[in-house]
């Protein structure tokens, strides 16, 4: 089996102005070690595509807090006041999509499609500026697919080829994001031997993954942990 096991320190793939797509939902299922690596690299002026802006100290939210993002494509930024602040003072351009539409635009990108037809948001500001088409008598917006220069995701187990399984609700956008990157880095909690994963249970096929790296683990505290600690 071809091995994609890698070290982030050996990868020279980041550059200013690139588009990065990040898996996760509210930071759950976002890759902590890879995000820290991007911050440490100093790369900036990034376009970030992610379900949401995380929290200021959690997941992709850190990239926003560190002011590395100039454009954000997301469905929600409410949990990251820093993103709201940067949007209002003009530092950060934010493009919103309904959550299911965003997920499906990413899925379409990963599956090699040009886009999707969707009616969610007709009759609201979502339809402003959207190209429309009538199919089978129903009106839809044409939503182009999304891909990225780099996709970064987190998983529970990976084999050397990059076959992946996820952990409960930390799966969320990760399989979609994994397939939509021109280059995809999968950060895994556990790297297992070839053959250790049940083929019936593999969620992301290794062909979508370019590099497998081992996670140093979540280095942030969740909101509910902070609340519990007072």
């Amino acid at each position, binding site marked *: 089996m071809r091995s994609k096991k890698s070290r982030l320190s050996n990868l020279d793939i980041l550059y200013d102005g690139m588009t990065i797509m990040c898996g996760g939902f*509210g930071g759950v299922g976002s890759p902590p070690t890879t995000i820290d690596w991007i911050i440490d690299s100093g790369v900036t002026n990034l376009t970030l595509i992610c379900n949401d802006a995380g929290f200021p100290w959690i997941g992709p939210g850190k990239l926003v807090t560190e002011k590395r993002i100039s454009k954000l494509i997301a469905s929600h930024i409410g949990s990251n006041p820093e993103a709201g602040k940067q949007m209002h003072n003009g530092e950060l351009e934010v493009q919103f999509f309904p959550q299911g539409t965003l997920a499906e635009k990413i899925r379409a990108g990963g599956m090699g499609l040009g886009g999707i037809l969707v009616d969610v948001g007709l009759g609201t500001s979502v339809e402003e500026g959207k190209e429309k088409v009538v199919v089978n008598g129903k009106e839809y917006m044409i939503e182009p697919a999304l891909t990225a220069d780099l996709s970064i995701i987190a998983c529970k187990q990976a084999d050397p080829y990059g076959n992946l399984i996820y952990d409960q609700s930390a799966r969320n956008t990760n399989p979609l994001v994994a397939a939509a990157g021109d280059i995809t880095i999968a950060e895994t909690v556990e790297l297992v031997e070839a053959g250790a994963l049940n083929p019936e249970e593999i969620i992301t096929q290794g062909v979508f993954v370019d590099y497998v790296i081992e996670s140093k683990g979540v280095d942030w505290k969740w909101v509910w942990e902070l609340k519990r600690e007072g």
Partner: protein
Amino acid sequence: MGMGAETRRLIAKRAAQEVTYGMMVNLGIGIPTLVADFIPPALDVMLHTENGILGMGGSPAPGKEDGNLSNAGGYPVTINTGASFFDSAEAFGMVRRGHLDLTILGALEVNGRGDIANWIVPGKRVPGMGGAIDLAQKAKKVIVLMSHTTKEGIPKILKECSLPLTVKEGAHMIITERAVMRIKNGELFLIEVMPGFSIEDVIDSTEAKLNIELVGRGTS
């Protein structure tokens, strides 16, 4: 919106009466989340989350939380028997395909035809729509839980919403601390008055035209 815990629970409890056997239900953040506490287990309801759970259970015991098992708001949850995990595209595929029987969500404004505004206050608060538009447009039944007025007493059930819409004519029911209202054929009906308020209290604090069609509590 400045409502006390008891009032919030009262609204949630009333909303739970709309849940029937075997439904697939999505609960929004805020008061809607509390509804789960009032749904009898015997109803075999499947709670759905946008981040990829069908069959979500209650909160875990302290110390049993798992950072990778949470609701769409990021708080730890458990799962019930028969639960499944899936990605976010599938989570919304279920919704768009018409499988979601009921969604219960909060709102900033609604109007008498069931328009809902709940995701943006232009220039002030722009959190983004998240899954609200998908859910409000595609669920078979949409119930809005909200305070009847702003803290200053200004009606939030309006002739026309002033904020950008989440959905046009999407709401079927509105439950507040003052009343339970139903929307039928583009018209708003008062069907129940909550304890401590009179019909006049409700009419006076509602800007939208309100038809009176009171029914017995819980029979709506």
